[in-house]
Every structure is written in structure tokens, then in C-alpha cells.
């Protein structure tokens, strides 16, 4: 391996500093493309892009947000190029989970997953992405704004609307005994 610049990132640095966010990127992409294999491709493409630009990595104040933005863009490209929506709920659930011993996973798993997945997929794209980044990835509002390239106010509005919508749907489906 030849380091052209002394401050350039080595493969080892890359593995320690950037690779650990892979699952975050994967879940985000999966939320958009709705397919495990495609989400995996997206993450791989993102990392290759980042690796090829490692010499100007110092110019990015928030590498993680940058990776997330790349993930978002590539995922949306992938989705649009296929002219289909990410509404195949079940796809992606053959991914091995680490906590499968949890009894919850065996019993209520299907029902819960299907219902909420559908509610989330029915949200407008922006609301869906904001909710994913906040409620699943635990990002701060500012990080979400950076990732999606929208204002802080837009993050709050989208999150508020998404949660309100989900709340109404949950209460409705409960009262109908669904």
C-alpha cells in the first residue's frame, strides 16, 4: 500500500473509523430500497466512494452525515431506476438478528413487524426518512438536517407529522381490533 500523503487515511484507519457505521447505513438504505441485497450494494458503493476520496476526507466536518447523505442519494437513485416503491414489507427480514433469543421475536414478531412496517412505508418519503433517522438510528435533529440537506425546522415538522400519522393509525387499528 502506497501512501501518497502522510495524512491520508490507511485501510486500517478506514476499518476502525468508518466501517463501524455500516449497519446504520444499511438500515437507512433498506428503509428506502426495501431489499436487503440492494441495500448491501448501496453500502458497498458508499464505502468505495468514501475510500476513493479519502485524501480529502479532512474537508468533511461530519463524515458520518456525509456517508448517510451518499447512502440516501444512492438508494433513491437505485429505487427510481427500478421504478418501484419500497413496499415489499417482508423482504429484508432474512437478515440474521443478534438477539433472536428474545421470546418476543418468535411470538409477536410477524404481526408487529407487518403492521408497523406498512404504516411507516405509507408515510411520505421525507417523513419516513426523518423518522428512520430519529427513532431507529437515534440521530440528533441537526444531524438529520445535515444528512437530508433540509432545515432544522423541516426536520421537526416532518417528524411531528410522521409521529402524528402513526399515532392515529395505531389507535385506529387497535379500536377496530386489527
Amino acid at each position, binding site marked *: 500500500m502506497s501512501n501518497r500523503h502522510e495524512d491520508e487515511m490507511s485501510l486500517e484507519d478506514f476499518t476502525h473509523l468508518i466501517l463501524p457505521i455500516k449497519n446504520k447505513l444499511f438500515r437507512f438504505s433498506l428503509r428506502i430500497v426495501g431489499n436487503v441485497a440492494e441495500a448491501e450494494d448501496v453500502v458497498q458503493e458508499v*464505502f468505495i466512494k468514501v475510500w476513493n476520496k479519502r485524501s480529502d476526507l479532512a474537508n468533511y466536518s461530519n463524515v458520518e452525515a456525509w456517508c448517510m447523505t451518499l447512502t440516501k442519494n444512492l438508494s433513491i437513485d437505485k429505487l427510481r431506476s427500478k421504478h418501484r416503491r419500497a413496499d415489499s414489507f417482508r423482504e429484508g427480514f432474512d437478515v440474521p438478528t443478534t438477539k433472536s433469543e428474545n421470546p418476543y421475536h418468535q411470538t409477536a414478531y410477524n404481526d408487529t413487524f407487518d403492521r408497523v412496517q406498512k404504516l411507516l412505508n405509507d408515510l411520505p418519503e421525507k417523513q419516513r426518512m426523518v423518522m428512520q433517522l430519529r427513532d431507529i438510528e437515534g440521530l440528533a435533529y441537526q444531524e438529520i438536517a445535515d444528512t437530508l440537506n433540509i432545515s432544522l425546522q423541516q426536520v421537526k415538522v416532518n417528524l411531528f407529522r410522521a409521529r402524528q400519522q402513526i399515532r392515529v393509525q395505531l389507535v385506529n387499528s387497535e379500536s377496530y381490533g386489527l
Partner: protein
Amino acid sequence: MDYNNIRKLLDKYWEGESTIIEETQLRDFFTGSDVPEDLKAYQPLFQFFQMEQDKNLNGDFDQRLIKQLESSEKPKATVRKLPYYLMRVAAAALLLLSIYFVNEQWDQKTNDVVVEEMTPEEAYEQTKAALLLVSAKLTKGTDVANDGMSKMNKATRVIK
């Protein structure tokens, strides 16, 4: 258990005013077994978030990625000095062309020869003359080719 605290957190959550820590508390509460009837409707949502957080890439992803990054690391193949290489090809082509032209001209000349009855001596003389002509033409052809080559070399030197 104090459900009122949870209800307060939940209200903040719906309004989009909860902190990340409070949201974690909500998730912990709803994925537990101690959820009262009136809050059960919201349980699937937080269970879903929990499940989603456990979704990960396959174990061999790292290996495959690193292999790919390493292969992109190899130095790019140096660009061959094609011009010089092409010069040599062009010179060879020129040589072949000149030989072809010599042959062509000679063929025309021989076609003009009128076939007639000859004595062996006459035939010998004619053959000798013909061979001398060929020899001369071939020498001329080589000169032309050499001339071409030297011009080529000159050009190559200039380009270099």
C-alpha cells in the same frame, strides 16, 4: 410502576419534543412486559424500532469490502509509449509496401514480354538480363525502404 411518567414522555414524543434519552426510556418500557392495557396500542411501534435496530449486514460484508478496497489500491498500469511502438509498426508496413510495389512493377514488365522461339543461348541471356533487372529493382526498393526508415527515425527522434 409509575405510568404517569411514561404517559408524559409519550405525550412529549408525539409532539416531537422528547430527547433521545427519553425516547430510549420509552423503547425500554414498551419492549418490557409491564405495559398497561391503555398503552398497549403503542407497543408495536417501539417494538418495531427495537427490531429494526437489530438489523445488520451479513458477517462476510467486511471481508468482501476490504478485498475490493485493496484491489482498488493497486497502482494503475503505466501508460505504454504507443507512439514509438506505432512508429516501428509503420516502418515495417512501409517496407512491406515498397516490396509490394517493386513486385507489382516487375510483374507488369514481365507481362509485356513477347513469347517467342529462342535458342538456349538467347534464353540464357534473357534470363540473365531479367535477373539483373530484378536485382537492380530490388536494390532500389531496399534503398527506398531504407530512406523511408531513416526519415521515420528522424521523425521518431523529433517526437521523442
